[in-house]
């Protein structure tokens, strides 16, 4: 409501008063317990390196962060460094001239730190805006112990996948768990089905707004999703669960599989983490190469940052071995920095899966227009509850696409 907006104005007003000293303000979205612990650890390390810098670390819950970032960037007292997603989500702000190019810190040495393939995801208009901190893979996660108990092996193709779902269902367990309260979990299904059925090249054009939502190819990809919905392979109460709540179904052995990013382990109880394994999303059409989803997280500097000097020190720190080593070791992510070793067996498997793939993308709500993503994912939730309305939903989304990309 309007009131909320005023509160924000008030808050920024008091911020202005309080920020006069040289202080590095760091805003992070690492709100879950494990990432939060690691974030504090990272800041401690930074302080050890630069004891003269006063650091203010603000940690927000991810869903709040997504809406708040937009109010920070244009304000006169923006934070000095902000955590964000690479690709389209970063470019949205770069293109509005709200970010500071950081070519002077990393421009020439980017390739020394990171794989060359990351560069596009970090640049806009041939200027560098983004320092990648880590990346991770997506996969279908399952509990080894449950698969052993049911005598199942991991599926490679869609037929095998469907087959397994049937067996799990017959054992009285929900084959696939998902929580769609915050919508984005549906994006992974949409991404993977389109990559497997229509290929990455086509899908990239689609995400850029170049292809209709009611295109026959989209419908074909959706038909596989519909197969799962019609067979009731998903938990039917998904729309009232957050992704973490859906995960508890798997922890309690009430559900078997979960299409999720590597960060699923952050929210899994420690004693169960080793039991959690993943397999690559099954192949649907063998003539289409295997593609994967690998979102990249990192940092950027707002144009209105007050303390640009220290912000640059932070960006250098992020790119370096210490930071990337801690994130990789503590959270099991893949470090963006080439010189940091792969932390564990699980990550080796993830890295191998990505290296074998023919191409990668970020994520639906990172690679397409934010508003379109919101409409789209709302539509996917609706589809998961009323698959018979599919044509209707896609036609509505197509109307939105035409308006948004006019």
């Amino acid at each position, binding site marked *: 409501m309007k009131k*909320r907006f005023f509160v924000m104005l008030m808050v920024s007003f008091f911020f202005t008063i309080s920020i006069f000293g040289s202080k590095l303000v760091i805003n992070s979205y690492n709100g879950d317990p494990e990432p939060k612990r690691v974030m504090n650890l990272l800041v401690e390390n930074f302080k050890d390196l630069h004891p003269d810098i006063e650091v203010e670390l603000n940690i927000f819950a991810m869903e709040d962060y997504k809406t708040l970032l937009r109010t920070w960037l244009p304000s006169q007292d923006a934070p000095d460094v902000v955590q964000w997603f690479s690709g389209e989500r970063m470019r949205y702000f770069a293109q509005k001239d709200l970010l500071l190019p950081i070519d002077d810190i990393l421009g020439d040495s980017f390739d020394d730190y990171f794989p060359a393939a990351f560069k596009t995801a970090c640049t806009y208009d041939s200027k560098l805006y983004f320092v990648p901190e880590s990346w991770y893979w997506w996969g279908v996660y399952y509990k080894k112990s449950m698969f052993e108990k049911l005598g199942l092996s991991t599926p490679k193709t869609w037929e095998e996948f469907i087959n397994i779902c049937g067996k799990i269902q017959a054992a009285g367990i929900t084959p696939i768990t998902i929580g769609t309260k915050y919508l984005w979990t549906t994006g992974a299904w949409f991404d993977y089905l389109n990559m497997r059925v229509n290929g990455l090249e086509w899908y990239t054009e689609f995400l850029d707004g170049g292809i209709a939502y009611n295109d026959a190819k989209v419908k074909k990809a959706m038909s596989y999703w519909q197969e799962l919905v019609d067979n009731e392979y998903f938990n*039917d109460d998904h729309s*009232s669960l957050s992704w973490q709540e859906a995960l508890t179904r798997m922890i309690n052995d009430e559900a078997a599989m979960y299409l999720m990013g590597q960060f699923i382990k952050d929210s899994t109880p420690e004693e169960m983490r080793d039991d959690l394994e993943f397999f690559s999303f099954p192949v649907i059409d063998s003539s289409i190469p295997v593609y994967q989803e690998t979102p990249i997280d990192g940092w950027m500097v707002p144009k209105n940052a007050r303390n640009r000097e220290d912000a640059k020190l932070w960006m250098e720190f992020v790119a370096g071995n210490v930071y990337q080593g801690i994130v990789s070791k503590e959270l099991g992510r893949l470090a963006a920095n080439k010189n940091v070793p792969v932390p564990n067996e699980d990550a080796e498997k993830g890295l191998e899966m990505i290296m074998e793939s023919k191409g990668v993308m970020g994520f639906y709500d990172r690679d397409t227009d934010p508003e379109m993503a919101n409409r789209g994912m709302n539509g996917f939730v609706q589809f998961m509850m009323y698959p018979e309305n599919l044509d209707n939903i896609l036609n509505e989304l197509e109307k939105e696409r035409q308006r948004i990309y006019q």
Partner: protein
Amino acid sequence: MDISRKNWWKPFIFLAFPFAVYLIWVIIPIIQTFTFSFNEWNGMDETMKFIGFDNYSRLFGDSTFWVSLKNNMFWLIMFVIIPVPSGLLIAMLFDTKLPGGKVFKTLFYLSMTLSFVVIAQIWSWIFEPKHGTLTSIMKSAGFNSLSEFQNFMLNFILFVIIPISLGLIIAYLFLRKKSILNNMNNTLSGRFLRNKWLVRILYITVFLIIFQILRNYWKPEIIPTRLTRKGFPWLSDPDIVTFSLIGAALWRQIPYVMVLYLAGLKGIPPQLIEASIVDGASWRQRFWYIIIPQLKPSTVVALTISVIDSLRAFDIVYAMTRGGPFNSSSVLANFMYIETFNNYRMGYGSSIAVIQFLITFGFIFLYLSNVLKKEG
């Protein structure tokens, strides 16, 4: 206070500060919201694009807007018909000296001390579909799915509550006709019919039997949806979610209204009640002709607050469902928030805020004109 001609400026000094605050934080933002609503703007660019009434015409073609408006109307209706009478009832109960009344009063107050976000969290656990409190209660009562419960309630209302109410109404009408009773003065049936409870039970039994016979020919059923057939989709079924949210909000609203009425009841001069007892008024007469009219100011306040609270409903919706599944529990405030801050459409969001402002303003206007009329 007498304000002399020489000191005419003094009140303005006292008013200056609050007025400045009001101007900066309320009036100017309202005007800004109106101007934003005629522009296309993402809240970040320095320039806005003037598009006239396009935001509004888009809004009226947006199905989410109509869903939100419909849900707001549900909130409004439920917030008027439930908290006001039940708040009054509970307040009347606490006004008599009940044993342990203070303990219960405190328990009722407690829900008011919690913020909406905390309430939303508590009720999210209550509504958890598999292991939540409500589901556990339902399961221990023998219901395996929500549709079983719905149909049980439907049958219970149709074949138990309705015949009992009909029996009571007919008995009441019958007992009012004193002339019939007087004519049968000394007969056995006359003596029987003057015992009020026997008459009531007789009518209730008759209606219960009639409805049981009817039940053999008429089997009403709420058709289960995909979701209600299997489990307890308190927050995931689009047809049920709004009522679940309103239920959580009422948990706080009812005690709120109760407090208002308790204060009102304390304000009724005890002499009035005593005089009515001396004059031989029955409790029913006392309720309708003394307490209710005396409580009118409280009722106006309770109604106005409930109406405004229902129109600005946001916290619970946002914290519990974010308007989902697929916007089916969205209300205008939530719709506005998502469009403005999630989808970066400041102009479009402002047009929603303007519509909401106009609706709320209508109700506030009604209230103010009522108050001003009284103040002369």
